[in-house]
């Protein structure tokens, strides 16, 4: 655990900035380039960097698999659910006009929520894919393929 | 050797046939074809056709007769005859010899 001291320190220093950048991309998606997909990937990159330096086990301690699966599901629900809310408000699916006092604001809120959902789902999915590959036990011999 | 076509049976048949020959005169001749009205034509048909038929069949037998297992031992002819399906019959028969 004492190798690569510089790497470990630098990685720890970088992590908050990566996550912060991800959040920037996330929330500025409707003004500048970016949005949920990109933000999610950047967010996941932070976790992956952590795992690369500190080992997958450490990552799994931080975000257990159950949490990842849950986050994926919640993200998707947030995305789809926002549309459903507008159904209950008497509009068509994905029509967010009534989420706030006036339609323009409503649309904005809707998009923000949807993007948040996408961000969470993508971040969780990316991390989950990485974890799945990195922790896979080599349970198949070469001959079996 | 044949126990059933005995002399009395033959004589009985002959008597019936003779009666029918006699009855030939009662016919009123209403056939569709002229030869139907020839005397005793039906007697002749019965007798001759029967004989010829049997002789031809015997001839045919020379050509086409084969042993029972000709089509193999799993063909229907070489199998024992059925009882009554899968339910065993009340076997009361005695095989010959």
């Amino acid at each position, binding site marked *: 655990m004492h190798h690569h001291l510089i790497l470990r320190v630098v990685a720890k220093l970088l992590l908050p900035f990566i996550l912060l950048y991800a959040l920037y991309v996330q929330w500025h998606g409707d003004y500048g380039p970016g949005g949920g997909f990109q933000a999610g990937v950047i967010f996941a990159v932070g976790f992956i960097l952590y795992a690369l330096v500190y080992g997958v086990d450490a990552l799994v301690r931080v975000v257990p698999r159950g949490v990842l*699966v*849950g986050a*994926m*599901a*919640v993200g*998707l*629900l947030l995305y*789809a*659910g926002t*549309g*459903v809310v507008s*159904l209950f408000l*008497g*509009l*068509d*699916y*994905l*029509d*967010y*006009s009534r989420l706030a006092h006036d339609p323009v604001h409503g649309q904005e809120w809707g998009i923000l929520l949807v993007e948040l959902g996408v961000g969470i789902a993508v971040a969780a999915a990316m991390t989950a894919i990485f974890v799945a590959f990195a922790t896979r036990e080599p349970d*198949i011999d070469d001959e*079996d*393929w | 050797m044949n126990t059933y076509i005995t002399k009395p049976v033959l004589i009985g048949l002959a008597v019936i046939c003779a009666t029918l020959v006699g009855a030939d005169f009662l016919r009123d001749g209403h056939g569709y074809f002229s030869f139907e009205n020839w005397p005793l034509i039906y007697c002749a048909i019965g007798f001759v056709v029967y004989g010829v038929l049997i002789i031809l069949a015997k001839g045919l037998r020379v050509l086409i007769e084969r042993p029972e297992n000709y089509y193999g031992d799993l063909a229907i002819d070489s199998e024992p005859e059925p009882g009554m399906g899968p339910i065993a019959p009340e076997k009361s028969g005695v095989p010959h010899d």
Partner: protein
Amino acid sequence: MIPQAIISQLPILQVIVPLIAAPFCALLGGRNRAWALAFAVSLVTFAISAMLFASTLDGTVLSYQLGGWAPPIGIEYRVDALNAFVLLIVSGVGALTMLYARESVAYEIDERHHGLFYSAFVFCMTGLLGVTITGDAFNVFVFLEISSLSTYALVASGAKRDRRALTAAYNYLIMGTIGATFFVIGLGLLYMITGTLNMADLAHKLVEHGDSRTLRMGFAFIVVGFGLKLAMFPLHLWLPNAYTHAPSAVSAFVSATSTKVAVYLMLRFLFTVFGFSIPFEVDVLRTIVLPLALIGILAGSIVAVFQEDLKRLLAYSSISQIGYMLVGITLLTPGGLMASIIHLFNHAVAKAALFMVAGAYVMQAGTSTISDLRGVGRDMPFTTAAFVVGGLSLVGVPMTVGFISKWYLVQAALEQGWWPVAGLIVLSSLVAFAYVWRFVEAAYMYPTPDGVIRREAPLTMLIPMWIFAGSSIFFGLNASLTSAAASRAASGLIAASSLIWQ
């Protein structure tokens, strides 16, 4: 009884009900909870599609605009007689397979993966329903990917029983992705010409645009892309392994729906979007698709005859059956189209029953190898009887649905004067009889091997199996409902295309 507000939302509910339910399945985890939710959702989905079907049978076209954006810009869901019919097939098969899945999945999948499995299953259903219902060409791609990705996962989950499921899923992934990519490339080319992605709008603008090299390229890419997705003859190579090694419930569901949905897409794009406004489109169908379909019909059947594994046999038979549908399309006549559409339904019903039977064998006998299933007809009489019914339908014996579709197809081929095609169809029925008979012979004519104990499948598997088997007889006897729907759908397609009918 049902508020008008909900009725008007039916098209979107058809897709979002399973879409919302899928993540909940993953969250619920444990076996029965996830299954119960999935089953409940599939029933609701079925009810929705039944309502849609009922309200479009008279020729009404329902249109739903997502987010309140008008069609050429926004996404439009458009339900007409054709896709309502396909929706009904997908959701019906989905609901029954879900019932079937409970025991079968409990046997074939690890308990801890059940949540994810059902989640993927419901996602797959979402994707297929979405592909079918949408009227937006790019939305088709999105849902196509949703259904394909979840299918890859579902196929791979067969790895507990057979490791080869992983390679099968991988191959399927590569091929499926190429197919979808081809579709997107084709779509991109069309977008270049027209600047729109709405199908109705595309159709309109393509006619205005007339012939061009870009259009031809787009057409070629889209046809080959769908050819992959629906397992057209030389592009079918992913199918046998995927169907063989997938878990049984997945085999049943996917075989009955996913290629059917691809056929539907093919129909939709050929007739509604392209509409045969240029002769090249007809040429491609007649000179490339038709011969391949014919080869596929025969080769698929012949290969099936030699298979050792029941699921594999069924998979190859699917390839041949898909050939029938393609032949029906290439006839380009109302009769041929109708034959294709009705076969879509008929084959889904019969194949679902057959794969369910194979799954029941996998569960109760531990194998789907034909030689290991000798004498199974006595041990599992109801299951095997369902196989016989489904098999007869594949052969096309009268009083089964298979007969109905073959009848229409042969009639349509004769109408065009395509005698050899009609002859080939009849001939392939004989080959189909050979492969069905192979299994029936093994199941009934041989004694059970010593020491093998097999019990009849549980009721939750028998019921869906027999619903399919029963409906393949019912609709074989009384084809008025299916043929009415199919002919309505066919005439809708023809009205949309610009072919001039003799």
